[in-house]
């Protein structure tokens, strides 16, 4: 792998490492979907993961969240190895995600979608539930109020009784993010949150991402195709192609990286872009 590794020494964030992925590999039969993937994410960072279709971005997400089994390598979350854990155990440790194609609980109300994420913190047992004991009632009330507060933050509180699949697309995305945050994660994985959105919705989304990051003190890993979102939101970008990391850096560095342009648009485009930037610098 000979690619220009951009130095990240100018990072102003020296917080503790939240996620450390080392030599991660995933094979589907003979296909190596992810090859020797390495990534370190520090607390509070907002990192983008981009690359052409089929580059293995979502596979990385599925490996982190335990939906796929890891072929080799390790994923350390706050120092704890996630390899071999069940998806629900990983969520409990503090990683939540959204999906590329929205995966809400379509026939449940908006409120219940959020309340399900609280299940692990419900704090009452099975028999409390069957008997509707005092303890159940107190806990359930608390949980419901928290869920409503959450919906309020995302401006969905008037929709609480609505069936999730009846919501407009943008609100479904917002609900999915709200639901993921209700699981109280430290690390949020967003898989193409802007897919299928119109420019106005995209603008709202970008503000929403900034907002939740501040408010919930989150570390965010984001997959996105819309360059406007990636360039506008992320501090660091990792570019993947054919399961490999081909470039890392700040948005500006990535934008002018010939390897990245080649991966996206082909060699010709890379040459063209180089000539163009040379011409520009000559003119200047």
């Amino acid at each position, binding site marked *: 792998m000979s690619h220009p590794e951009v130095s990240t020494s100018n990072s102003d964030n020296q917080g503790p490492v939240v996620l450390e992925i080392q030599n991660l590999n995933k094979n589907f039969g003979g296909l190596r979907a992810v090859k020797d993937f390495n990534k370190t994410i520090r607390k509070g960072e907002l990192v983008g993961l981009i690359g052409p279709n089929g580059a293995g971005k979502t596979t990385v997400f599925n490996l982190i*969240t*335990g*939906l796929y089994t890891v072929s080799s390598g390790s994923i350390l979350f706050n120092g704890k190895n996630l390899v*071999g854990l*069940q*998806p*629900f155990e990983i*969520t*409990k440790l503090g990683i*939540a995600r959204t*999906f590329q194609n929205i*995966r*809400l*609980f*379509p*026939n*449940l109300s908006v*409120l*219940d979608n959020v*309340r*399900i*994420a*609280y*299940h*692990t913190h*419900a704090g*009452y047992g*099975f028999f*409390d*539930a*069957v*008997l*509707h004991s005092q303890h*159940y009632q107190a806990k*359930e009330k608390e*949980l*419901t*109020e928290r869920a*409503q*507060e959450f*919906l*309020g*933050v*995302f*401006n969905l*509180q*008037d929709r*609480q*009784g609505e069936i999730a699949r009846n919501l*407009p697309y943008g*609100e479904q995305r*917002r609900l999915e993010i709200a*639901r*993921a945050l209700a699981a109280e994660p430290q690390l949020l994985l967003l898989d193409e949150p802007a897919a299928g959105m119109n420019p*106005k919705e995209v603008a*709202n989304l970008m*503000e*929403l991402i*900034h*907002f939740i990051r501040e408010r919930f003190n989150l570390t965010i890993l984001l997959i996105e195709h819309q360059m406007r979102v990636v360039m506008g939101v992320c501090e660091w970008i990792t570019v993947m192609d054919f399961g490999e990391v081909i470039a890392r850096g700040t948005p500006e560095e990535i934008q002018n990286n010939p390897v990245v342009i080649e991966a996206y648009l082909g060699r010709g485009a890379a040459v063209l872009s180089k000539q163009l930037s040379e011409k520009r610098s000559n003119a200047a």
Partner: protein
Amino acid sequence: MKTIPRSTLLFFGVYLLITIVVQALISLQLLTVFWSKLLLFGAVMAIVSLGLNLIYGFNGQFSLGQWGFYAIGAYAAADVTFRWTQQGSASGLVILLLAVTLAGLAFWGVGWLLRRVPGLDPLSSFALYLAGVILAVMAAVAIGRPLIEPVTSALALLPSNLALQIVFFLAVLLSGVLAAEISYLFGLPVLTLGSDYFGIATLGFTIIVKVLLDNSDTILGFEEMKGARGMIGIPQATTWLWVTIFLLVILVATRNLLHSSHGRAIISVREDELAAKAMGIDVASQKILTFVIGSLYAGLAGALYAHINGFLHPNTFNFIKSFDPMIIVVFGGLGSVSGTVVVSFIWILVLEGFLRQWLPEGFENWRFVVYPLLLIIMMLLRPSGLMGGFELPYLRQILPPLRKNVKAESTAEAQGD
């Protein structure tokens, strides 16, 4: 003191009223034995179908095994009460009680062990559970033998009717738990299968149970079950009062469960398994939990069924009949508790009652032309079920009132679309 909501009062009031009216009709002999027994069947069918609705309607697992657990409940309870009334011995009760308790302890113990050795594949853990259960049953027989005599004489001190009611009640409860425990054992390896494959495996289970019951006197060694000749001499202890009590408890328990966080977790598995996993739901244990509860209901219902006519035949538990609760659940609306109960009664009363009575002599088999036709018409006209998702107010999930003060917190960023 908190006020009880109107819907709750209404529900219990109407339930009590129906119970009393039907009981009065039965006591005054205004209803013939034929019709009053059909009402008992209706309630029993409602309990089985509620169990299946939990498994299929709420948890999304297509199961044809419900009828097998129904059969297990029926034969287990019948054996206990048969031994008490016909042989004057509490042997069935004592052994079943000990076996169920010790098997429960064995499950707990093996589960505790398995948590310490994570990463065991389902079949190996199944083998461990099976070994635990076999040991538990052997221990139950060994411990139980000397206890049969004293328990029998103690129960004999009570008035004979009271003793029978106690034995009957315990037999029903224990048979339900037995069915639940067997479902846990069976569900461990099988629930790891995808939904359709799970359906086929449960169909296999129902067929195995039926074949075992056909040979219950030879292979299983229960002489009194008389295999394919049918078991007779079971006390007819199931009354309208008993079935309504059981149905009410099950209705309330189901409703309470569904309105809790556990219920939402169960439903989330049906809605989207992957999303449920990503939200921290242990999908596998939710499936097992629901399957066990559903089978518990089936076992209880089977036990009540066995004591309606006092006669059991393996043909009742033929796998073809296992489609009955499935059809009822789909008719009543997947995930509709009220629909399931209403359609159960309609199903029994129409199919076993009116069609039998109305069709002229010798046309009884035309029922099986009429009802498939009804199925087709129904599916074409009302695919969402007869009640179309209707739920009684008490059973309906009430939305908590909006909290207005949260609006101030919401941000301008999140607004608008």
